[in-house]
């Protein structure tokens, strides 16, 4: 039987308030904690996606004891959910309580700290773990980094923190002809188990599902199952995607919810497929006779066409603001000021740098879709002013 390993990411950034040059040094708040923008977006997405999809998942889990999936949720998401849509937390808690749903570890702030500061990275992972324990009474054992960013060095950090495995993207240039549907081992001291995203089958749902020009439009659960059934015994099909695929990126009227329900139910009936969580898959296959190595010298991610870091760390605007942010680490920590530290960490959320991306074509459209700014230049301009204010607080 082939294994279907489902993983969904839940994240919403705290968007920046409009801080002007004339506010520098005047203690203006950066994040409209209670303000309209974040609330409006969160509640809109909760209504369209989080609540209906979580409700559907809860039904599926309760009615099918063989149905498993995993998710991870950022700390900044959980804070906003508690404040703007507590029902989302309640549904997540119910799901976790069933024992069929695994929660994965990640950074609290959905940050790029793994690329800039090992110490800061560990602290944010720890902070996230505490939040998950507090809300769900479980301790994650498998890790997924922000945007599935991974390299050998990051793998080593993750391994050192005691995780049983890690999720990332299957990038052709590092697969060396190996099938992506098996468990890989990282180039780390203890050969960290890795599960690699099946981009094509994931993106059939996440990106192409409602695209009318797509040759397979409209996609039915039967067709999709046929594709999955072409995989052999003991293969692992990793379907990793944003949770908002359901209801937000693919709208309800596209039939996405119905598709997912039928797909799960039919898969369960089929003798050729079964559902697993990441930790189940790792446990099951980590002692297999042959497991290929996944050697990733340069960081990869699940984003854009290139599956690299260029969505966040590409042009000078992104590079300089990121470097400036992490140069402040020592100074921010030395202040021992809770508010300052919290602001600095929220500014690390990768979305702020994603908005500054100046790549064009199809990727650019995706960036524009998510950005609250009229242009990447405006995203940079505003962020730099906030950074100037953060510096001012430490003079």
């Amino acid at each position: 039987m082939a294994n279907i390993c489902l993983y969904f990411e839940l994240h919403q950034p705290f968007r920046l308030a409009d801080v002007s040059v004339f506010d520098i040094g005047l203690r203006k708040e950066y994040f409209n904690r209670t303000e309209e923008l974040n609330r409006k977006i969160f509640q809109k997405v909760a209504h369209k996606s989080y609540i209906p999809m979580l409700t559907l998942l809860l039904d599926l889990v309760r009615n099918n004891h063989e149905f498993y999936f995993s998710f991870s949720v950022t700390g900044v998401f959980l804070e906003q959910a508690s404040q703007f849509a507590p029902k989302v937390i309640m549904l997540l808690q119910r799901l976790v309580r069933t024992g069929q749903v695994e929660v994965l570890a990640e950074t609290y702030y959905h940050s790029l700290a793994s690329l800039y500061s090992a110490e800061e990275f560990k602290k944010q992972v720890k902070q996230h773990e505490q939040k998950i324990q507090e809300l769900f009474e479980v301790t994650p054992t498998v890790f997924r980094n922000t945007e599935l960013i991974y390299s050998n060095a990051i793998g080593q950090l993750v391994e050192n923190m005691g995780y049983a495995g890690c999720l990332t993207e299957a990038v052709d240039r590092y697969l060396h002809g190996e099938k992506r549907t098996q468990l890989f081992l990282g180039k780390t001291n203890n050969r960290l188990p890795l599960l690699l995203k099946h981009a094509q089958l994931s993106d059939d749902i996440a990106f192409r599902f409602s695209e009318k020009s797509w040759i397979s439009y409209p996609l039915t659960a039967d067709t999709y199952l046929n594709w999955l059934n072409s995989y052999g015994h003991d293969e692992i099909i990793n379907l990793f995607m944003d949770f908002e695929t359901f209801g937000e990126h693919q709208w309800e009227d596209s039939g996405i919810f119905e598709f997912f329900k039928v797909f799960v139910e039919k898969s369960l009936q089929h003798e050729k497929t079964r559902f697993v969580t990441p930790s189940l898959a790792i446990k099951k296959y980590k002692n297999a006779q042959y497991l290929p190595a996944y050697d990733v010298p340069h960081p990869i991610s699940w984003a854009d066409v290139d599956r690299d870091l260029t969505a966040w760390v590409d042009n000078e605007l992104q590079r300089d603001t990121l470097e400036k942010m992490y140069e402040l680490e020592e100074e921010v920590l030395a202040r021992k000021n809770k508010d300052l530290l919290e602001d600095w960490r929220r500014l690390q959320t990768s979305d702020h740098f994603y908005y500054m991306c100046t790549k064009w074509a199809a990727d650019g459209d995706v960036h524009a879709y998510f950005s609250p700014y009229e242009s990447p230049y405006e995203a940079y301009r505003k962020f730099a002013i906030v950074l100037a204010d953060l510096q001012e607080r430490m003079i």
Partner: protein
Amino acid sequence: MANQSKSVFMIGWEYPPHNSGGLGVACEGLTQALAQDNTKINFTLPYESDIDVSHMDIQYCIHKNWKQVQCHCLKNGHNCNHIICEPPFSAYSTEFIFPEEQLPEEENTGYSFDLGKLRKLSNTQLEKQVTEYAEVVGTVGAAKQNDFEVIHAHDWMSFPAGQQLKKQTGKPLITHVHSTEFDRSGLSSGNQYISAIEYNGMKQADQVIAVSRYTKHLLEQKYGIDPSKITVVHNGISDLRHSADPGRHHFAPNRPVVVFMGRLTIQKGANYFLDLARAVLERIPEALFIVAGHGDMYHELIFKTAREGLSASVVFSGFVRDEQKRKLLDRADVFVMPSISEPFGLVALEAAQRHTPVIVSKNAGVSEVMPHAIVADFWDINKMADSIVELVTNKDAAVTQTKGQLKDLAKQTWKLSAQKIHQVYKNALLGKNSR
């Protein structure tokens, strides 16, 4: 002793609140002072408006070919209902795009420009509109020819109209140069069509007024204009409507603030401001540099800022006006104007008026009237950096400079400018130096 009464037909292009920059402000200050000095003025504009002035008669000169659009702007709370309420094109933006700088002052409440009118014009279109303006001005002026003795045209957009009217009435023409194509293109050749209009206008003029010795020199060197017919008349500066409130209390109280304010074009030298920032930050790491303004170099400038690792030390405020402009000039510890070529540079005087020590480019006319300001070559980063470090670390030096600048300003009145212009009118009527 009051001057002998004079009458002038003045050809304008813009007037507050519809000004894209210095020209409108200068025309306001100048005509008020001339009127005080016993001058009867007819003043033309290529658009309709409800400009409320009592010191002169405004002649709205609209050509029938111009796009007749009912204006939707709100002035005094009601639709203005004019068919064209702004100049046909903005004369001072490098690309002939209506710049955001044209947004009027908040004091003239409720008015807003239609930004949908952003446009680029070809030389043919420019020529057409300037010629059409000349046609209308010629007709209006000829009908009033018993009402004036001299013709006074401001900058190239008005020169063909001045020449036309001179031809029709035989009255002496004075062309007033506030800015040339060489300045606007950063001392490169710029738009040859426009420099040709400038050249012809000055050649045909009986007298030429330059806003600075710097500009007079440029007119001699670049345009070959006979220096004996050029008179330098510096601009004045009006009294503050909101008193100065210098100090660090406005914002960023913990560090030195250095300000650049102007269009982000090659002319204004904003890229030198970034070089300067880098040099100063090596010595004063906490200094904050603020770039205020919009323009076609904006993206280039933010990329340069980031590439050189200056993010958060150099920040961009966007275009500022009114309260924000005052606040920025009040807050600045040093104001820098590193223009490549600046006929005058009013904003440097405005900064001085708000008690801010000023560093100006040697290639700026304003340096001639503000001997207490620091003057440097726009490319001399070392000298400017040394001056900034001195001004922010030595309070006495800053105070001394600020006081000196205020003394300089006291002499810089529009009344004085008006007296000089009267003399130019006299010379023109006497046929001195005219061809």
